């Protein structure tokens, strides 16, 4: 870990690599996040509407519940769990392949701190990109909910929009963004660790990818509990 955060050989190269990782890991994940969150937002709205068919409960509660579910949990935690599967395995297998094909050794022989060169740009890149991904996830999720109002007969667009504006607290967005950055650190460090310590052949690279994903998801869920307890209770 110390090696990852030690002074880089050249800051310019670190910055260049970080931009590449932001593009590869962050921008490359936008489309899948948008697709998942659009449908998730729609499904959450439909399910909430189905459970609140009581005439004594105002319809605007549906929009309110959808908004809070998406902002508090789906946009950050669920997105991060999905990203752990997508980019966590990508990171672990990329670094694992570099390990077994001796590319990391080649860097070390040249005098390059391979851990810092390969892992640090991924951590920084994801820390920068994750809040943007979460904001996109929030927006698309809420849009998905809005789209679902066209198939839910009992819910009007006006009720949904009124629900979105009900008792809005920007602190909840802040809480979600803080969580997302912690999750970004977990995904990149855990996956990188398993890739970096892969030994053997292709089978071990696959195992490193699987381990990276599993441990990242478990740690995300545990961290979610702690952060929620610290920030919301």
């Amino acid at each position, binding site marked *: 870990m110390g090696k990852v955060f030690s002074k880089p*050989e*050249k800051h310019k*190269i670190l910055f260049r690599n970080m931009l590449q990782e932001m593009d590869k890991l962050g921008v490359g994940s936008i489309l899948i996040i948008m697709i998942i969150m659009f449908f998730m937002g729609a499904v959450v709205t439909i399910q909430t509407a189905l459970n609140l068919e009581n005439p004594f409960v105002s319809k605007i509660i549906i929009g309110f519940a959808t908004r809070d579910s998406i902002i508090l949990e789906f946009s950050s935690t669920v997105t991060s769990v999905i990203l752990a599967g997508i980019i966590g395995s990508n990171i672990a297998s990329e670094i694992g*392949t570099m390990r077994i*094909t*001796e*590319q990391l*050794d*080649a860097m*070390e*022989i*040249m*005098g*390059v*701190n391979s851990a810092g060169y390969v892992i640090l740009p991924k951590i920084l890149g994801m820390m920068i990109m994750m809040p943007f991904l979460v904001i996109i996830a929030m927006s698309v999720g809420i849009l998905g909910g809005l789209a679902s109002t066209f198939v839910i007969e009992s819910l009007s667009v006006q009720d949904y929009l009124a629900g979105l504006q009900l008792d809005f607290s920007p602190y909840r967005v802040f809480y979600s963004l803080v969580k997302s950055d912690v999750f970004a650190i977990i995904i990149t460090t855990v996956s990188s660790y398993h890739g970096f310590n892969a030994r053997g052949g292709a089978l071990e690279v696959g195992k490193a990818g699987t381990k990276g994903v599993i441990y990242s998801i478990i740690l995300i869920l545990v961290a979610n509990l702690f952060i929620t307890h610290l920030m919301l209770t």
Partner: protein
Amino acid sequence: MIEVKNISKTFLDNKVLNNVSYTLKKGMCNLVIGRSGSGKSVFLKSVVGLHEVDQGEILFDGRDTTKMASKELKALRKEIGMVFQGGALFNSSTVEENVRYPLDMFTTMSKAEKQKRIDYCLDHVHIENAHQLFPSEISGGMQKRVAIARAIALNPKYLFFDEPNSGLDPVTAIIIDNLIQEITKELNVTTLVITHDMNSVMEIGENIMYVYQGQKWWEGNKKEIFNTNNPELNDFVFASDLFKSIKKQN
């Protein structure tokens, strides 16, 4: 010159290197030969510092790497070039980017100077019209040559080759051997080649150490190796029918 004095290396309970001493002479192709699993690659990785030795000294022109601080070791590594068994080229970078990598990391050269150096290194290993190709798009022999070009990019004092001919056809293997010899003489570097290829021994073996079961079993040159009475070395050298027939003829 590199002096290796009484190094040992154990992995768990397995003693892979046992009190090995060897002097790598400057401007020569120094070869470490031996059967698979004899400890050759561990010897190489111990010398370059990828494995920490349990005991002994490794002196690069008098500088003991086993006692060096990591900062000093890092500085020394800029004087080292190494070609790995599989080439270890960065597969997401082109041929040219692979050679540029050490220049980007450790020099303050201008773009034009870097390009000149890249062209020089790639010309030296006879790579033409492949600068923009990725390692997966070139042959195994070309990958080895690009790896050599990358290894010499920073004008190293010491060059290491881990089984440079593995997976290559005999003709390409000879080309690589000749290239190693050419670079060693031209740049006056201390070269260490790990191999179990007897053709390489005959081509470039100037100072040879035979490793057997983690120990130095024999040391000499390519002329002496064919007249040795060492039974284990004889078994290794004359393992093939070709070499047996050569021995009979002589």
